[in-house]
């Protein structure tokens, strides 16, 4: 059984529900002892932007997106935002949650190539 896990999130502004559930599942993976990566791409990169994430509050039983992201990273989860997707949207590092990394597809490919299963939202 793989000890790593990957969640790719491709929605946020267009569909906050998907971003929210994506981070809930990522937290479940982390809580199940998996070294977990969340890879944000296309519209999903907005989840890494603090001001944008603050607008996503789906309501009970889901916590606000900001809280989900901060709890996930605080517990050791890794979040990467797709570099060209950020560039296209004029998003820079200063707008992001502190621990979010900006990287290209190679990091995702490497993570998955090493055996991590992936679920996409």
């Amino acid at each position, binding site marked *: *059984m793989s*000890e790593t896990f990957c969640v790719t999130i491709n929605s946020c502004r267009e569909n906050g529900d998907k971003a929210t559930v994506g*981070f*809930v*599942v*990522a*937290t*479940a993976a*982390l*809580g*199940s*002892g*998996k*070294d977990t990566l969340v890879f944000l791409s296309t519209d999903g990169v907005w989840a890494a932007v603090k001001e944008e994430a603050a607008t996503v509050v789906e309501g009970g*039983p889901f*916590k606000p997106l900001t809280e*989900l992201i901060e*709890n*996930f990273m605080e*517990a050791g989860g890794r979040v990467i935002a797709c570099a060209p997707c950020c560039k296209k949207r004029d998003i820079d590092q200063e707008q992001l949650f502190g621990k979010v990394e900006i990287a290209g597809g190679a990091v995702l490919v490497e993570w998955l190539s090493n055996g991590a299963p992936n679920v996409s939202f």
Partner: protein
Amino acid sequence: MDYGNPNAGRMTAVEWLNECELGRASVVLWRLQNLLKRWRFELNSMADQIEDSDDTTPFFDGGDTGCGELLLDLLLFIKKHPDGSVIRVRALDPGAPLEIPAWCRLTKNKLLESEHPIYKIRKSEFEGDKG
């Protein structure tokens, strides 16, 4: 009396309840029944808490959290205890009967007892500290 209307002269249920003593008594009984249900629920919760406080087994109360939040909190809790510890868990989430056993298999911890919403888990001596 209007004989052309089949409903003429008939009382509605609400009118009947308001009019007759039996009706008013029924309303009182119904309210009393609801009150008893609430008391029973609160007493069961109190009984659980008393039982928990008497038990020396480490107790994790997941309340009504579920999925990611429940599992991450449970992992952080179990990490604080030495390998081989038995942990008592209460998880009210309706998904818990499937989630908790799956979590135990993933983390290699042993599910000793499962009677929703109470679960007993032994922390693995070899791999329970993983993650």
